[in-house]
Structure formats: structure tokens, C-alpha cells
């Protein structure tokens, strides 16, 4: 029974009648139950005496028509009881805010005390404006009862409507003709001169402005590349997620920097370390603006300031690593304590340079001085390694007599110099 009701209700919901108009939230496709009182007046001798009665009916909508099963119980003034049973149909002819007027027609049977009679009834029914589920029903009909008996029946009753309540949806607003072709994919690209690479099966660069000319469906889900001179590249997946404006980011203007240093140097800009070629140069690009290049190696750490301009190459030449000259007390081969900070600083800025250490000596008492010079060189080498220099990067050369003008009264010294300091030169 439940499933039958559901079926009926579902069927009815699909064919909602209009006769219940007037109630903003009236049940749609409702079953209508009516309880009424009525009275009849015979129109002929065979029609019998005036009568009064009670009745109930149940109606179901079938499209615009409502079919009712009506059962009546009445008695005339005799009093003679009678029972009537009819099936009739209501066809709405007027429907509005003030109610609905329907034509009715029905067939049935009446049981009087004497014998059953066939009945036919035609008339009109009025369903007044009502609250959502209850309303007035008035009816007026002519009834033929067979044997030339006819009567006019007037009735008034209460109708209950029961059924699923369906809120009427808001009016559907359409902004465009649904038959019109769908709009182009809303991808707007700036600058307008950008080009878009459409992958397989198109495999073609097209102007971004021409995307709207293509079938949007063919572009959905496609990842395209967007490029424009002077702008950073961008990849975009086209989907139907709504309008999209792609503004390419202007690419920073770049210039080039050539750092001219020495093999073994380390070139840094901020936290970035750049590789250096065997000829001691490093080439890289940098955004337009000031640039500070730090060159470390050979015991020196220098910062070279420059300015990068778009479209220009800037060569910055690092100074030659200066040799470190250490003086010793006469006759001593012990590294003086006051030169140790200089050695440590030298090693800290050694980079990847290879070092050679030479002890120089005066020509007087040459052999003795040469031994002292060699011992000093070895001591300096040991001190450099102790300060952190790789042992393989330190090489002690044979001691040598210094140039006459180099001593200036000193008895000897040790020179620490980078092998790279004898600069690579252009051919």
C-alpha cells in the first residue's frame, strides 16, 4: 500500500494539476477528500420528495481532471432512506486566486427502499480559495435517476487536500539564449602580443587573442604555454572553472657580468657561488642594478662593486693576490707570534690557491743563512697547515738570495705567494 501510494504520488508530482491554484504552498497533486451535506429537489413527479443527505468523496487527479468516488446517504420527507454511489469527474474550467470552477459529470447507482436505480449526474463544482490543505467545496448538479426521475442537488462541504508539499522553485533566470553556442574560454592574457603553445594534436604557437576562435571543448584540460618577449613564461591549464585573467609577470632586465680573477679564486654574490673557469674568469647574468662581487682566494678577500645594465656586459677585474712577506728575528727560524694572525687571515682567504713558500737570505755567511731561511720556510709552511691550509696546497721551494733592493737592511724574510698570482693573460 505504501509503495502504491508512493507510486501514485510520484506519478502525480510528475503531472501537477493547476486546479489547486490559489494556495502558494498548496500540496501538489493532492488527494482530495470531501465531506458534505446536500439537499435535492425533485423536478418531476417521479423525482420524489425533497431530500437531504450527507456524503463523502475521495478524488485523485489525472492530469487536469480530478476523478472522484462519491458515496452519499440521504432520506426524503417520507422518510425514505437511500444510498447513492457514483464515480464522477471534475474538469476545471476557471482557475484563479479566487478559486476554481469545474464541470462535473458522473455515473453511479442509487439504492432506494424499493429497488436500485442507475444514476447520472452533471453539474458544476466550486473550490473556493483555501488555506494550504483545507477549503470549501460547493456543488450544484442535475441528477437523473431512471424512470423519468430527475432532481437538482446542491451540496456544500469541506475538502481536504493531502499530498507531498513541493515548494515552487524560484523563477529560472537565463542570461543568454540556451541555444546559442557556448562562449569562448574566458582566458585573457596580457600583454596582448603573447603567444600560446597548444600541445598535441595542435602543436602550434598561436596568438593569445585567437583562443576565443577555437572550440572551447577542445581546449578544456589542456595545459598551454604562454610566452611573450620581456615576460616570464607561464604554463596554464585551461578548464571551465570560470573567468581567468593571466597577466604575465615582466621579466627582470638582465645584464651580464664577467669576473676576471685567477684560478683558485672563489666568486660569490651574496650566498651564490659561481664556478670559475680555468682562465680565472666567471661569467653569469645578473638583474639590472648594483652588484657586489666578492672574490676570495690567494689570501685576499675583496668586494668589487659594479652596476649591471640590461643589454650590457660588465667586466670586473679582481686585484692580483699580493704575496705575504714575513720578517724574522736575526738567526731565528721560529715563526714570530705577532705574524700568526696574519697567517690565519691569509689561510682564511686562501680559496683553492696553491702556495709556494720561499725563504730568502742575505749573502753574508751564505750557507748559514740559507739553512736558517730554509728552516723559516718550513716553519711558515707548518704554521699555514696548522692554520687550516691543505697540506697539499703548500709547497716549500729552495731558499734563494733576495734581490739587492728587497732587503732594505733586513737579514732575511719568508715570502708566501700564490702560484696563480702570475696571472693568466690573454694570448
Amino acid at each position, binding site marked *: 500500500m505504501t509503495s502504491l501510494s508512493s507510486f501514485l504520488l510520484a506519478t502525480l508530482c510528475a503531472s501537477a494539476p493547476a486546479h489547486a491554484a490559489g494556495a502558494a504552498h498548496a500540496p501538489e497533486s493532492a488527494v482530495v477528500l470531501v465531506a458534505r451535506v446536500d439537499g435535492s429537489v425533485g423536478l418531476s413527479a417521479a423525482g420524489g420528495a425533497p431530500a437531504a443527505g450527507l456524503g463523502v468523496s475521495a478524488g485523485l487527479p489525472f492530469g487536469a481532471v480530478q476523478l472522484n468516488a462519491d458515496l452519499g446517504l440521504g432520506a426524503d420527507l417520507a422518510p425514505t432512506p437511500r444510498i447513492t454511489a457514483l464515480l464522477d469527474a471534475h474538469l476545471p474550467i476557471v482557475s484563479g486566486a479566487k478559486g476554481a470552477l469545474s464541470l462535473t459529470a458522473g455515473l453511479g447507482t442509487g439504492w432506494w427502499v424499493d429497488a436500485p436505480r442507475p444514476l447520472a449526474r452533471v453539474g458544476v463544482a466550486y473550490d473556493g480559495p483555501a488555506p494550504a490543505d483545507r477549503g470549501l467545496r460547493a456543488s450544484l448538479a442535475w441528477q437523473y435517476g431512471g424512470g423519468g426521475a430527475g432532481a437538482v442537488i446542491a451540496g456544500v462541504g469541506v475538502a481536504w487536500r493531502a499530498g507531498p508539499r513541493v515548494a515552487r522553485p524560484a523563477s529560472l533566470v537565463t542570461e543568454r539564449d540556451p541555444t546559442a553556442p557556448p562562449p569562448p574560454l574566458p582566458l585573457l592574457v596580457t600583454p596582448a602580443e603573447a603567444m600560446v603553445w597548444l600541445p598535441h594534436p595542435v602543436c602550434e604557437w598561436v596568438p593569445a587573442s585567437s583562443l576565443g576562435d577555437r572550440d572551447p571543448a577542445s581546449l578544456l584540460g589542456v595545459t598551454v604555454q604562454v610566452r611573450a618577449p620581456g615576460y616570464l613564461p607561464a604554463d596554464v591549464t585551461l578548464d571551465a572553472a570560470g573567468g581567468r585573467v593571466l597577466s604575465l609577470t615582466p621579466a627582470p632586465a*638582465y645584464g*651580464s657580468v*664577467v669576473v*676576471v680573477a685567477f684560478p683558485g679564486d672563489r666568486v660569490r654574490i651574496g650566498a651564490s657561488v659561481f664556478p670559475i*673557469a680555468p*682562465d*680565472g*674568469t666567471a*661569467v*653569469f*647574468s645578473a638583474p639590472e642594478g648594483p652588484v657586489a662581487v666578492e672574490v676570495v682566494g690567494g689570501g685576499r678577500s675583496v668586494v668589487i662593486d*659594479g652596476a649591471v*645594465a640590461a*643589454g*650590457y*656586459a*660588465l*667586466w*670586473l*677585474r679582481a686585484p692580483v693576490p699580493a704575496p705575504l712577506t714575513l720578517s724574522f728575528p736575526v738567526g731565528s727560524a721560529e715563526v714570530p707570534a705577532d705574524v700568526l694572525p696574519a697567517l690565519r687571515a691569509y689561510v682564511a682567504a686562501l680559496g683553492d690557491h696553491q702556495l709556494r713558500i720561499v725563504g730568502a737570505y742575505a749573502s753574508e755567511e751564505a750557507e748559514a743563512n740559507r739553512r736558517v731561511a730554509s728552516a723559516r720556510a718550513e716553519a711558515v709552511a707548518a704554521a699555514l697547515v696548522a692554520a687550516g691550509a691543505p697540506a697539499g696546497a703548500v709547497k716549500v721551494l729552495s731558499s734563494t738570495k733576495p734581490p739587492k733592493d728587497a732587503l732594505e737592511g733586513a737579514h732575511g724574510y719568508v715570502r708566501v705567494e700564490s702560484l696563480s698570482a702570475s696571472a*693568466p*693573460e*690573454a*694570448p
Partner: protein
Amino acid sequence: MILLWAGLAHALDHHVLHEGETLLDVAQAEGVPVGALRALNRLAAKDLPPVGTVLLLPGAESSEPAAIVLSVSGTGTATLPGEAAVPLSTTRALPVGTLVCTDPGGHATLRLATAPHSHEHDDVTMLGGTCLTLDASWARDERRASVVSVRRGSIAVLAAAEGTGAVTVRTGASVSTSTTGGFRVTVEEGASRTEALDGPVEVMGAGAQVSLTEGTATRVRDGEAPAAPVALLAAGAPRYPNEKTQLRRPDFAWAPVDRALGYRVEIASTPDFTTIVLAEDVGSSPWRPETLFLPFDEGALWWRISSFDRTGFLGAPSVPARIVLPVGVGP
């Protein structure tokens, strides 16, 4: 633009008074009354203009600007008559009377005597720190004539490939004129020097005239006659960089020139050196600048070398050598 060009419609032809010429000779040769010539050049009846005087001639009107800016490297200014100075740019058309200056380190090349539908012209390259005034510039048919006054600095009048362009360069001390171009005029302290690089040049000063042949030069001190011509030094031959080696280390080397006191290294983005981007006077080969700043988006660069002698004369430049930028330099 229309207003600007309308104001240029009074550029005049000119004539440089040479040795032995008189005003009457010029008037008869040009078909101009002597009185008109005197009036136009503000000469009194008793005035006897000396050799080297630039006489303006009436009638040679042109609707073209006196000059256009062919190239600018660095910065400079152009001061049009009655106007404030504006930055020098290649879109600039310059009328007669314009003062053009390059800032130190900047270079510019002006195209003089431009004529519509003509490929013939006269180009003048201004080195850094140069100021000149466009006195006259005129072109018609195959004839061209221009006069500029150099206030300071140095200019090079490029050799004219064809035609009969006459370019006259005035300084406070001298007047140099040539119909073939290819000469250089430099203003010095109390003097000016003229170097004939690619053709003959007439140099006048204090009523005297000296004819320079290609490869010679003269100096004219204020109020004095031009000195006797001297031979210019040969150019050094560029060795490095060249088209076979990348310019990784900015070391410029060339074959030294005997008796050269110094050299001028010039780098340009065109082989005709109308677009000089750097000019540096250096002592000897090699030249290893601490910093170097060159454009990489010009397509190519060339460099050349010229030699200074001990008296300051600068010889003709060498044949240009191509500069190959290192891999990694560029956009």
C-alpha cells in the same frame, strides 16, 4: 614636427675663402652681388675677410634639418635655438644653430647635409666631452655643404664614400675644410689640431692656409698661422681580442708602433665606427682595464687602435678587429 621642420627652411650654402680669393671672385662664381654677400655676412665695405672666412651664400634653402642624430652612446644634450637643452637622442632632428654636446664618456654621430631620397651624406662623430654648433648644412642634388663650430672636444668627419660633400669645421683657432671627409679636428688649450686621415684637408688660420695630405696633420695656435704639416704615426695592428678568441679577459693587445707615445683604443658596434661605445687613451700594449662595459645586444663589436706621437697628434685608426663575446654573455 611640422613646426620644427618649418623652422629649418633657411639653411644656407657657404663658401670658405681660400688663399688668393677675393669677395668679388666668390660673388662672381656664385652669381651673387657683392653687396648682398657683404650684407649677408655683415661685412662693411672696407672689410677684407681673411683666408678661412666662411662666407654664407643666399638662396640655397632646404626643408631638411641641418643634422640628424645617427647614434648616441652614453649621454649628451641638444640645445635648439631659443630652447632649453634636451637629452640627445637618435630620434632628434637638429636645425641650424643647435648646440650639441656629449658628456664625458659619451659619443654621438651626427648625419649632416641630409637630403630626401639621397643616400649621400656627411657623418661627424663626436667623442666624449665635445660641444659643437651646427652653423650651416645644406644638400641639393649631388651637392652638400656643412659648417660646424667645435667649442671643445674632438670630432671626426668620416670619409665620404661618394659625392662632393664639403664639411668645414671651425674652432677658435682654425678653419678646416674638406670635400672628401676623413679628418679629425680637436680643440686643445689655446690651439686646435687637424689630422688628415683619409684625404686632403685645407687648414686656415690667421690668414694663412696649409694643405694637408692624407696621413699628415697640423696644429694652429690661437692667432697664429697653421704649423708646418707633420706626418702621422701608423696605426698599431690589433692582436687580441680577435674573431678567433673570446673576450673573456679584457686584455687588449696590439703591435706597438715605433715612436708612439700612446694609443687610442676605440670600440664600436659597427665596423664603420659611427657607433662608438668606448674610446680610451692608453699608454701601451696591452691595455688591461679594471672594468669594461660593453653592449652585448648590438649584434657585434669591433675595436681599432690609433697611435699618438709625442706632440699629441693622433694617427689614422687601424683596420677594425672583431670582438667575440664570451659564451654566457647575452640575453
